[in-house]
């Protein structure tokens, strides 16, 4: 597979993209990431990724140090969980998660020392197999929000040659600025990861994709890429139009290469790997230090937060403590989200732990995120125009109400990534994303793919 010319990419990309323009509200863009002091306790659920849950490897009363494995699984599609503070395990029991579900978790009471586990050492990585093993051991999952174990993503099968590695720094969700800060604060780590991954995975082309509303990030990354003369033009910095959902994996592949990931397929099917920029920077740090994924950056923002900022938080810290660290609320919040306003999850309580894949905590007043009564659909077709996947949500609603799994399958519901562009643009305020989930559930029940 040869790399397509820029002209061909442009042609493929400009046609029928869908998407929406959404107010960026990146109010924390200039806020340098602040490291939060160790919380009193952390709660580490055993499933913070897509795939098999982990089994706790510690028991109540054990002493653990930062970076020690506390949960692991023998399944391949899974990622180990590490202690994010040093202290004593006080419970191994079910806890309530952000979505209201109960899940097994390990609770650690911090001793406030943040002692590093003595077993931490930089991994020895010389080829792809060692890299994959090291990344699995690091506990890395996609930090952009999906939470897919990174070692699975990078371990592409031999029969699918990869010619392009895409580092995703689009960050198209409003409010969130952690990836942007990562570009500015850890740009050398990002470039380090780019070179390491490109060499070990033998990927000839690397594209770092940034939306055009982040000129500073583009400038910094470009200057570093320009400094490195040995690489020629194998590493390209690509400026993408700011249009939600630009950062979605399939959109990203289309923007960077002009290729369309087939329905039901993965970027590897068209010779691409997409990796979040924060995940890439983590890989670079991990290969240098061996310190596994025990903390991450989150954007704390929204119109109810007193001091909106970016915070580096130990994983498992409760949302309540994170908000407290940012000065608490300015007024009674109406809705608290984990993740961005387009795809984030509304929290049932602030008493839930921050997971590896959570990139933001947003608190909104009724003004900011008030619900609107829905009216009858007028079939205006705005949902279809907005859908980046070219679906026709208004038809899907019709057949979901009829519970017609066959028709839903023909309409391609399974390619829906629930980006919310349809519901955002719906003048009748139809809960279209909910309908998409309902449609998928109807198809799953009927056994239709």
């Amino acid at each position, binding site marked *: 597979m040869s790399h397509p010319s820029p002209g061909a990419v442009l042609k493929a990309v400009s046609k029928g993209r869908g998407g929406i323009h*959404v107010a960026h509200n990146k109010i924390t863009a200039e806020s340098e990431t602040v490291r939060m002091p160790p919380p009193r306790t952390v709660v580490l659920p055993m499933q913070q990724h897509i795939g098999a849950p982990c089994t706790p490897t510690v028991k109540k009363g054990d002493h653990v140090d930062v970076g020690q494995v506390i949960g692991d699984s023998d399944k391949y599609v899974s990622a180990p969980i590490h202690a994010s503070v040093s202290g004593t395990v006080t419970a191994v029991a079910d806890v309530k998660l952000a979505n209201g579900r109960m899940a097994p978790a390990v609770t650690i009471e911090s001793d406030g020392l943040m002692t590093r586990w003595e077993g931490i050492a930089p991994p020895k990585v010389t080829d792809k197999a060692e890299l994959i093993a090291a990344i699995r051991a690091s506990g890395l999952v996609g930090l952009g929000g999906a939470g897919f174990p990174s070692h699975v993503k990078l371990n592409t099968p031999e029969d699918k040659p990869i010619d392009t590695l895409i580092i995703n720094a689009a960050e198209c969700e409003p409010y969130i600025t952690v990836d942007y800060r990562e570009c500015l604060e850890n740009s050398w780590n990002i470039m380090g990861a780019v070179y390491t991954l490109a060499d070990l995975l033998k990927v000839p082309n690397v594209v770092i994709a940034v939306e055009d509303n982040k000129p500073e990030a583009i400038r910094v990354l470009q200057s570093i890429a320009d400094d490195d003369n040995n690489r020629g033009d194998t590493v390209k910095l690509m400026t993408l139009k700011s249009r939600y959902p630009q950062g979605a994996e399939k959109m990203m592949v289309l923007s960077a290469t002009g290729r369309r990931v087939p329905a039901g397929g993965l970027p590897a099917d068209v010779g691409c790997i997409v990796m979040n920029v924060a995940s890439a920077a983590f890989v670079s740090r991990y290969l240098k230090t061996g310190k596994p994924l025990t903390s991450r950056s989150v954007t704390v923002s929204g119109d109810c937060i007193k001091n909106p900022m970016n915070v580096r938080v130990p994983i498992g810290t409760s949302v309540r403590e994170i908000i407290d660290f940012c000065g608490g609320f300015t007024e009674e919040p109406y809705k608290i989200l984990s993740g961005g306003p387009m*795809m984030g999850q509304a*929290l049932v309580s602030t008493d839930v732990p921050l997971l590896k894949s959570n990139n933001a905590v947003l608190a909104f007043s009724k003004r900011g995120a008030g619900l609107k009564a829905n009216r009858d659909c007028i079939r205006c077709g705005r949902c279809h125009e907005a859908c980046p996947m*070219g679906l026709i949500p208004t038809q899907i609603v019709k057949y979901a109400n009829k519970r017609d799994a066959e028709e839903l399958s023909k309409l391609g519901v399974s390619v829906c990534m629930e980006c919310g562009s349809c*519901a955002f643009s719906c003048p009748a305020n139809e809960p279209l994303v909910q309908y998409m989930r309902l449609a998928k559930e109807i198809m799953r029940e009927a056994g239709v793919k």
Partner: protein
Amino acid sequence: MNEPAKLTVSASPHVKGPATVTGIMFDVIIALCPAAIASVAIFGLRAALVIAVCTASCVAFEYLSRRIMKRSSTIGDLSAVVTGVLLAFNLPVGIPLWMCVIGSFVAIVIVKQLFGGVGQNFANPAITARIVLLVSFASAMTNFPLPKSVDAVASATPLATLAGFDRTADLTGQIDLYRAADKLPSFFQMIFGVRQGCLGETCAVALLIGAAYLIVRGVIKITIPFTYIGTVAVFMLIASRGDLTYTAYELMGGGLILGAFFMATDYTTSPVNTKGKIVFGIGCGVLTSVIRLYGSLPEGVSYSILLMNIACPLIEKATAPAYFGFVKKKKEKKPKEEKAEGGAKA
């Protein structure tokens, strides 16, 4: 910090775009204003009365029917106002007012509410009401008074006059002849709507200003009007063997501009996908042209839109766009396919 007392949980997305149903309908009303003003200027104050009666009775029927059916009131979405104004635009200025009320009843109660209200009607309410009135009260519906400013002998509408022409002879010559005898309006009068016709359809300039507003505001796409008017233009050019004057008269003569921009683009009764819109527009154009050229009626805009409205679900089905990454399934025997899927899953 204390735990917030009450948190709202809902499905994503948690922010909403600016578009609202009421806003869209309001934009359509704004777009209809130039033509409404023009109609009063051309046909006198009675035009305003017809518009007012149609609008008021449409809103009243919307309110009453929803109430009787024990459903929530929907007059706030302004769609009944749009229907009322459009219905009035499709009536001659001298129509008895009670007929306006009957038309409003057909539009709102029968075509719209009995099928489930906004978004559910199978045909455009205003067009259907016009057709019902036309077949019920043919003489009142085809009695087109002359504009106030014209002192000509009462005659037929431009389209009816054109329909009587011999298309094998020199058409421009015939038009000139009729114009000299004041039996056809001048080109200038045609553009500004100083001619006989339904009260909202005559002023091409006012309609185009409104249409431009709708397109700029993103309320309608130009696809349907463009393909519709384009198809009619092509047909008329062929039928008149390239006579531009005749074609221009045909395009501005009847309700084509009103129909193409304001009626055929009705969301509910036109396809949502672009390919479907093109088919829909061409279909309307073909039907209109065939009715005008070969039918016994001088005008065919409302019938063709109604027919295409009914075909809309079929068009949508036939032109369904491929979704992202759609792969054509290879023709395989069923058991094999299942096996392959199972394998991919494992």
